[in-house]
């Protein structure tokens, strides 16, 4: 087969580019430790979540304190709200602290995305999505359902209030 010299150079450059991409992403995953959403959350019955009979913390979703430096937030996504998160029930978490979101769906597919952050996961019935983050900047962040979930999908928003660590009162959140 005849391959023109220019073609050879181009081919070499293309492969180099591709290997470069793979290398940076591998570095981002392994070196910088950017965690992927994966199967660590486990499975759950969506109907049980809907009936509040899953026998898990999803029956009473909200913020759970593991210890001083780690909080877990259980969120149920359902047509058309996040519990907690939507309306006048924002998710309140401390800044500069490890926070794990555990999100599941009580009905159809939803999305769980905190605007302009890396917190972005699909919410699939039967699966628990698990994302661990640390917010440096206190403030109010937008929360969006980004997967079409029915005729009122566009109303399914919410907010996340990140409170300075010193001012965070877990008691106030938990009831």
């Amino acid at each position: 087969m005849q391959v023109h010299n220019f073609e050879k150079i181009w081919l070499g450059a293309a492969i180099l580019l591709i290997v470069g991409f793979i290398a940076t992403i591998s570095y981002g995953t392994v070196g910088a430790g950017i965690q992927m959403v994966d199967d660590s959350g486990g499975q759950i019955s969506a109907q049980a979540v809907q009936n509040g009979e899953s026998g898990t913390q999803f029956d009473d979703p909200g913020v759970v304190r593991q210890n001083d430096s780690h909080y877990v937030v259980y969120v149920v996504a359902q047509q058309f709200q996040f519990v907690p998160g939507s309306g006048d029930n924002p998710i309140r978490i401390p800044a500069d602290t490890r926070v794990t979101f555990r999100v599941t769906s009580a009905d159809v597919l939803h999305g769980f995305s905190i605007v302009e952050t890396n917190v972005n996961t699909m919410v699939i019935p039967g699966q628990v999505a698990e994302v661990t983050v640390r917010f440096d900047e206190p403030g109010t962040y937008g929360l969006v359902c980004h997967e079409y979930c029915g005729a009122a999908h566009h109303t399914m928003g919410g907010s996340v209030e990140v409170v300075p660590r010193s001012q965070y009162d877990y008691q106030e959140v938990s009831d």
Partner: protein
Amino acid sequence: MVFVDSYPKTSKLVRSEFLVAFAALGLGALFGIVQALHRTGLFRGFVSSADYYTLLTGHGVLLALVFTTFFIAGLFAWATTNSLERELPQRLSWSAFWLMLTGTVLAAVAIIGGIVGAPTVFGHDLQADVLFTFYAPMKAHPAFYVGAALIIVGSWLAGLAYFKSLWDWRSENPDERIPLRAFMVVTTMLMWYISTIGVAVEVVALLIPWSLGLIQSVDPLLTRTLFWYFGHPVVYFWLMPAYLVWYTVLPKLAGGRLFSDPLARVVFVLFLLLSTPVGFHHQYVDPGIPEGFKFIAMTNTMFLLLPSLLTAFTVVASIEHGARQRGGEGYFGWLRSLPWGDPAFAGCMLAGLMFAAGGFSGMINAGMNINYLIHNTLWVPGHFHLTVGTAFALTAMAISYWLVPQITGKRLRQRTVALAQPYVWFVGMALMSNAMHRAGLAGIPRRTAEPNYDEFAFEGLVGTVGEMRLQIAIGGLLLFLGAAMFLFVMAETWLAHRGGTLSVNSEFPDPLSGPEHSPRILDNYKLWTAIALVLIVIAYGPPLASMVADGIAVPGSPPIPV
């Protein structure tokens, strides 16, 4: 000889397929402009926000499935016939056409039912606002799934007709190399067969019985995985026909020849091998899938860049050759000698240019970690309106200016409108898509009828949200205008009387480096198909096995609404 005179039967087939494709394009573009105006808040008088999703389902199905599949069927019918110099098997081809049309009508009726209040038909609400991805457990009327299945099965039959042609040609020309265009058609169809298995299993074995109530529940993650097994290769099912045009017709339009026939074959074989084992890159942020499988899909995806980069080289080199034949000189000066006044040429070039931008945003999507920033935001429609919505759609429109005269025997009418049309599309898409990309970075989601949420407001990183909305709306209007101009030219041409000689024909000059330079192994479809299957087993075997191991419907979800 004009194509329509040499092959009257296949010409009729191509005309019928194009007619359906163009009707779908017109209706889809109408839905598109309504969406663009509604979701930006510029004009919201056409539909309610609840009905928005029914339109969006129609837009996705009509454009991404119906327009593309019918146009490709027509283009491939022409390409196979023209390069093998024989009419297609008629009965097979027409059965394919009618199956696909029946499927389209069924799906369309189910979708439109949602706008007229979802009446009960055969015991189920006649609606299908499930979008073209139809993720379970959201349920549509069974007619929607049956329609989708018929479109796929029809496309399989259409492919059989090309294979039949090739076999017949083979038996008469046992020692010749497969002509390039037939080679491209067959490679594309092989890829299509392999990848549609996923969605066929999803729809036929799971969703149809489930929507009819014959089985109680399906596993949402499994059906979603089967969908995306098909959902990425389908992208190459759209692009490879555009590549066929860019490789084989565009150099001729530029006044030159294809640079290298062997490399074109290599590129198509690479697509066959790499297109399918990448679907998990649409599921980077899905729970329930181990990170390792996502990583394998990511590396495959990155290597899938290779055939596109090679295409960029070969196509540009061929066009430059053409320009120099026409007297073009200098490093970039040759660009001026190209036939920019030819609507078919200008359209393909602009489509290719936009594809380069789309390729760039695609690399961002493929980056497993950067993907978090843009997954399911408006960035994503911004990206695929550059690829399928321009690279494919604008190439299809442009090549119609060249092809339709040959399958009707009528000269292209309204040349001025035809010449302006690709530029209108280009400007419209530049506005709409760049604003969509930026809106995505600001976190604005896709598939949303309302511009605002109660709990918070979006803020632009680059530019204001208001300005992005305006650009999306103006871009959408220009795109709609572009589609209307195209359909106007087609209607005028189609309805005109025959007369005079055509200025176009389907004769092709030999490539600079011909098929005799390519190793015979490239034509060995069995080998390539086998390797493709092995790669798929590596990428999909273990995850599918683990999803199915605990029972096909575990964890299961009943349909919603019940």
